[in-house]
């Protein structure tokens, strides 16, 4: 099975125009069809409550694991109502025949114990048809309040073992929560788990806030705020919810910030005399250096994962296009050449792709291209899609979709880089400008 799914994902990564489907019977194999992936069926019975107080969590954790895996579009849950076996002892032998009978190709079992507020989760994965374990069983411990994170860690381990890719479930998303009508919109920073759970607000809505971005370690967030009356770059400590102005406080507009991979440097745009360029700032010293100097709009800089290059947008050619330059500035080479306008480029964490917003013929798209501009593919299309952010494993993109008209509302969506599995991310209010964190430790 590992081999099968690894093949399946390589198929997706190779950007095949056709979908990949698998045969349900006989030896596992890959068939290229023009259909979509047939998701891999799995079963996650309620985890076994191993202490008296673990009953509720043992069921909830299994539900989160199931939602994580099914939410990828690569897996499909065989519901509990179809299960033949009940797992009542985590250490008892697996009744493979019962899981084969319902065609659950993967089985995930777990045991949960709670002592005080300490939660311990043990789990195992099984390849049902080969009657093998999917790697060794693992155990995570933490506090009971962190139960969702433990569930996500189980999902990450299972996903990783089956696909050969790192997971992305134990991660967070910082975003702008929106309320109120379009001409009186209130915006505040918020953070949540990748799946929309555990929303926490980081600022009040007294000033416009835009486009938060995580630090490489996920403990700080850069964002643009109008708190002083004009846009300035702020940095916020996520754990302590403390913030300060980072950009020079000299009345110059600063926006579109992003951290360098070393976490010590930031880049952002400044507008001086109506002209917007990209600047780089050393956080410790506050030293500012100018990376672009053209009369056009240069903005939305994003570093390559090795920190050596920056992809950004510029309208120096007469319309918005994507360019790559050295992280120290200097000559830039244009990488986007298709029809329409390109903006908000973001380098993937794997380094292989750039995600972007494209505007063409009155429609907006989220797309990806290789870092040299080749193999452009559009993943979405709507009245207004913009601002992609990468899942930590570089397989999924989250972005903002805004609906048309007077009652237009912003919602977060995610889509696989294959273009499949487009779906909204549930948030309490309107939401925009998502930024995905690295995988948590």
């Amino acid at each position, binding site marked *: 099975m590992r081999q099968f799914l690894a093949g399946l994902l390589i198929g997706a990564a190779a950007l095949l125009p056709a979908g990949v489907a698998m045969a349900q019977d006989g030896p596992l194999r890959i068939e290229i069809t023009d259909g979509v992936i047939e998701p891999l069926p799995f079963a996650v019975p309620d985890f076994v409550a191993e202490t008296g107080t673990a009953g509720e969590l043992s069921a909830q954790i299994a539900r989160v694991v199931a939602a994580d895996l099914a939410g990828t579009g690569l897996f499909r849950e065989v519901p509990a109502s179809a299960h033949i076996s009940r797992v009542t002892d985590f250490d008892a032998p697996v009744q493979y025949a019962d899981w084969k009978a319902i065609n659950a190709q993967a089985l995930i079992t777990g045991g949960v114990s709670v002592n005080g507020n300490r939660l311990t989760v043990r789990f195992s994965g099984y390849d049902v048809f080969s009657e093998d374990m999917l790697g060794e069983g693992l155990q995570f411990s933490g506090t009971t309040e962190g139960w969702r994170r433990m569930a996500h860690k189980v999902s990450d381990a299972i996903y990783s073992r089956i696909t050969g890719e790192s997971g992305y479930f134990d991660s967070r998303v910082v975003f702008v929560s929106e309320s109120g*009508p*379009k*001409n*009186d*919109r209130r*915006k505040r920073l918020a953070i949540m788990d990748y799946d929309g759970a555990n929303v926490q607000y980081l600022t009040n809505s007294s000033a*416009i806030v*835009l*486009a938060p971005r995580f630090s490489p370690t996920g403990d700080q967030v850069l964002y643009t705020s*109008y708190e002083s*009356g*004009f*846009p300035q770059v702020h940095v916020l400590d996520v754990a302590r919810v403390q913030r300060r102005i980072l950009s020079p406080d000299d*009345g110059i*507009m600063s*926006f*579109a910030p992003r951290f360098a991979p070393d976490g010590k440097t930031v880049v952002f*745009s400044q*507008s001086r*005399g*109506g*002209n*917007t360029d990209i600047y780089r700032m050393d956080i410790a010293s506050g030293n500012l250096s100018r990376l672009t100097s053209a009369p056009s*709009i240069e*903005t*939305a800089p994003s570093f390559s994962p090795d920190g050596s290059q920056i992809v950004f*947008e510029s*309208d120096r050619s007469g319309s*918005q296009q994507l360019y790559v330059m050295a992280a120290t500035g200097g000559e830039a080479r244009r990488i986007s050449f298709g029809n329409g306008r390109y*903006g*908000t480029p973001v380098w993937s964490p794997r380094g292989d792709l750039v995600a972007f*917003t494209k*505007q063409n013929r*009155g429609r907006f798209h989220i797309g990806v291209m290789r870092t040299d501009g080749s193999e452009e593919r559009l993943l979405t299309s709507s*009245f*207004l899609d*913009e*601002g992609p952010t990468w899942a930590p494993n570089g397989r999924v993109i989250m972005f903002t979709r*805004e609906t*048309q*008209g*007077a009652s*237009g509302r912003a919602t977060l969506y995610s889509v696989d880089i294959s273009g499949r599995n487009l779906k909204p991310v549930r948030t309490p209010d309107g939401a925009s*400008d998502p930024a995905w964190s690295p995988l948590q430790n």
Partner: protein
Amino acid sequence: MGISGMKRAICLVAALAVSACSNATGWRDDGFGGSGSGGAGASADGGLGAGALAPNSPAYFQQTVGDRVLFAVDQHELGAGAQTTLAAQAGWLAANPEYTITIEGHADEQGTREYNLGLGARRANAAREYLVANGVSPTRIKTVSFGKERPLEICSAEACYAQNRRAVTVIAGGFTS
């Protein structure tokens, strides 16, 4: 809320004017290019009709001189109408030297967030340069861009977009006499 509601009322009136004349070519430059003037019932200070505004008041500036200029799609050039409005603004500012101003540049929703911030900065700066060329001291002028964050009109059609692509001169500092 009160101010923005009032602005909205003004622009609804303006939007009607636009749709009424939108078949005429070049309406952006026909002198409409500016003024937030107008609207009956759009008085800033509750109860005073436009005719009763003191000529040196910010409300007079907003409603009678005209506090805004409009732009074509993705452009920051000032049309003839916009220049007329800005010349009137410069005249008012010369007569009322105690005021400072902030010029707010805005974009419509057809664009990405960061680019629209840059575009709004261009528009605010275009208005600023025109005022400076007409004698307003640069030290009295601040500029700021709101990109597409503060639309006045909320439909997703050109009639609304045209009103949102604007540079608004806000009487900021100084003291009222």
